């Protein structure tokens, strides 16, 4: 995994610098690029989210018999009705915020999303969701290829990654995406003050602007350095934003708060990447409470604060959020009160223009059921995750999904817009 990613970057660094335009053009370019008002916020739940405890088939007796200590009691789920297969479903009790958005008709729950022969390796599976190709976990990502379709020169903040590392989904041949893990420390420090510090920053920018002809790896590092210096001032605008709601005081909440600031302050980013970890719940995950309850609380409280905030600012109709994880987990709990790596998962899509509701059908968890695989150990996928990507690209971002996804996945896509 690591080597192939490195190789890809190595091959692409020669061209990555052209994605970063000179600072004088930034605002004009940001405004000129088509319809810049629609944003996509992509949230990755790292570790493999236990979808069966996110959206709970609370009338399936096998759910309770196979999860004797971690099942959420039927009386505690937040009911969201029944799917087209007639299965009654409820959200985890810590997901009150998201249930409200569901009740407003703005949260789509895409059940059993995945692909055939799901990888059970975190790294391979995460890369597959990034490349949007189950056959390869190396090469560029679907969002990176989307960014490559936008007219050049591209504004340096066209995409905004709130994690420190660039995820494969954002890797591209020609577009560098700034990583801004902590917007409050996204500043330029100097051992000196006043004019000496300003002169030093000028020199640093000049050094990083060296094209480094014939030295692509140096040029790549220069591009990160220059990208930082050129985006400092606009990032500061986003962090000075005062939100209309109180965000949870955790890393995920603060990332979403920064994203809201960037949206409200009109920074011009089309794609935001946010991630939160801890979903690899092999042991002691708990049922309604415990570790998994805290994960659901973090997710629901953060996302609902974000949604409420952008709605208060009149921007909900310009914002779509999609949530995914690299795989779901085993149906039966293990001996450690946790769950091991499984197959199909749950995608969540929400926003002011999203057609909310339950999409797809829940699996029957009884051993032998055709909606299971791996000797009935895991949930079999029903909706190809790439059809959701296709819908987001075609219907939301307004580009042709076929070349970006290297295939036509529009048929059978859930009608979330």
């Amino acid at each position, binding site marked *: 995994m690591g080597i192939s990613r490195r190789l890809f970057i190595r091959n692409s660094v020669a061209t990555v610098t052209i994605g970063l335009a000179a600072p004088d053009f930034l605002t004009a370019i940001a405004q000129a690029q088509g319809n810049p008002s629609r944003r996509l916020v992509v949230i990755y739940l790292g570790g493999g989210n236990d979808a069966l405890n996110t959206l709970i088939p609370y009338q399936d007796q096998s759910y309770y018999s196979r999860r004797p200590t971690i099942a959420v009691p039927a009386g505690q789920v937040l009911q969201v009705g029944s799917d087209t297969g007639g299965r009654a479903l409820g959200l985890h009790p810590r997901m009150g915020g998201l249930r409200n958005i569901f009740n407003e008709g703005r949260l789509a729950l895409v059940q059993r999303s995945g692909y055939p022969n799901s990888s059970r390796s975190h790294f391979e599976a995460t890369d597959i969701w990034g490349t949007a190709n189950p056959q390869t976990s190396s090469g560029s990502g679907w969002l990176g290829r989307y960014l490559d379709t936008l007219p050049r020169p591209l504004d340096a903040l066209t995409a905004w990654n709130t994690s420190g590392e660039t995820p494969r989904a954002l890797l591209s041949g020609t577009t560098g995406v700034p990583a801004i893990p902590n917007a409050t420390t996204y500043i330029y420090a100097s*051992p000196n003050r006043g004019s000496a510090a300003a002169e030093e920053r000028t020199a640093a920018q000049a050094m990083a602007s060296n094209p480094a002809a014939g030295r692509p790896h140096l040029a790549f590092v220069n591009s990160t350095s220059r990208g930082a210096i050129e985006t400092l001032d606009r990032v500061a605008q986003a962090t000075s934003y005062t939100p209309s709601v109180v965000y949870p005081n955790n890393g995920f909440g603060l990332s979403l708060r920064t994203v809201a600031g960037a949206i409200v302050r009109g920074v011009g980013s089309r794609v935001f990447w946010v991630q939160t970890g801890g979903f690899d719940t092999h042991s002691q995950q708990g049922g309604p409470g415990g570790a998994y309850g805290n994960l659901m609380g973090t997710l629901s409280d953060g996302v609902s604060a974000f949604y409420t905030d952008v709605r208060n600012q009149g921007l909900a109709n310009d914002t779509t959020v999609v949530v995914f994880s690299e795989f779901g987990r085993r149906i039966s709990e293990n001996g450690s009160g946790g769950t091991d790596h499984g197959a199909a998962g749950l995608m969540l899509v929400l926003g002011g223009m999203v057609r909310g509701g339950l999409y797809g059908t829940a699996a029957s968890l009884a051993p032998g059921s055709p909606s299971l695989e791996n000797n009935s150990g895991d949930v079999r996928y029903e909706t190809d995750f790439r059809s959701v990507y296709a819908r987001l690209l075609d219907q939301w971002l307004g580009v042709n999904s076929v070349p970006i996804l290297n295939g036509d996945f529009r048929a059978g896509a859930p009608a979330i817009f």
Partner: protein
Amino acid sequence: MAQINPDIDHLLRRAGFGMSPADADTFGDMSTTAAVAHLVDYEGRPDDVDARIGRPDHAQVSSRDLFSPDIDIDDARQRWMFRMVHSRRPLQERMAMFWHNHFATAYSKLVADSGALQATKMLAAKPGVLRGPQGQLELFRQYALGNYRDLLLEVAQDPAMLVWLDGKTNTRAKPQENFGREVMELFTVGVGNYTESDVYAAARVFTGWNLRKSEGYSREDMNAYQEFVYNASEHETSAKTFSFRIYGNGSQTIAARSESAGMQDGIDLITALAVHPETARRMARKLWSFFVSEIHPPDAGFVESTAAVYLSNGTEMRPVVRHILTSPWFNNPAMRYARYSWPAEFVARAIKEVGWQGFSLDKVRTPLANMGMLLFEPPNVGGWPPGANWFSTGTMLARSNFAATLAASQKETLAVSLEPDARTPQALLAAMVDRLRPAPFDTAPQQAMLSYLLAGGAWTGSAEQLNTRAAGLARLLVASSEYQFV
């Protein structure tokens, strides 16, 4: 300072953490062969680094109260940084970093399981200080250039690993797949060389490899501990068949064994995985990236020869690393500056080369986290994604701002030590480049640095001018892209 042999300079950036001015004197007259032996056969060097913590003329450590690196994770982080900067056995610390990334185990999960004190002990306790087994990092230091099969066997019984990958709850009734999967995917053969049914079989192999608590265990008691136990009654005794060879006779099946003899299952599997040809090749490729280059793909001749040294020496790592450091691939001048420095090695090297007078290693923790490499907190069991992945706008800014913090702390010492070279801006720049030895600069960045030195007015070399501009120049150099390569 003696003129530095570029081969030794390269060697110390790769097998050490760069060169302080004192290192430059030590290695100044040494042949490259002698320098390799000096680093690889490090048992000949004093193991005195921890005893020098708190001494003058060293980087400082600071703590809210008593410095307690066996039970406080922030102090453990400072101790490790101190070792990287000051050890007389730098290759041992580098290999410890390699193993920490290879067997990536994160403090936060251990805290959730056992509390902060026990979590620190499991990761960092030095042997002989408190009761209980040594911490995982000490295991990596002990086996830094030791036998890989033995290290793997120790890791399978390491309390931190047994919590991290849930082996402590791997029982007969409920085999736990986490360690069984990762021992193949990440620690040995890699994806594509095992099947899902191998994962189930491996989980069963390690049933009963659990933990037991010391008598009267309390997580707040610094002398309480957890240690490995083979719980015979929790071992699943039936035969386990794999898709690859387990025994020298070609057999792929670990035969059914009695409960009391069942621990041998795990020893057999670990031995088979350690000597698997794909493990040898995978290790060779990882070591290529760690020692030789991250911008050239592993050379096939390198992989085959390194794998052969590994296998023919019974998985001993010292001959493997010696082979690498003396190989034509490593010593090819094209491989100089062909690796992206990891944040911890960038920080250690910058401190060694810029200076540490009055600098506390406590100031390193937050910058390292912002650079993406908080020690003892890898992002997941796969370790940190190295190479170009270390670099993004945010992490580069964190490196740059650490350079500012370090340069600010060394203003006076830089001004004093560079005063003899400060007659012209060109001489000052040349002296600073000699001291830090980044990858070669093109003309444009050199011009930018000279312009910076002259931006405040005509160069006089006054103490005040030197005080400001030497620190600013050190910051520009350490934050330059050229300095990020080793």
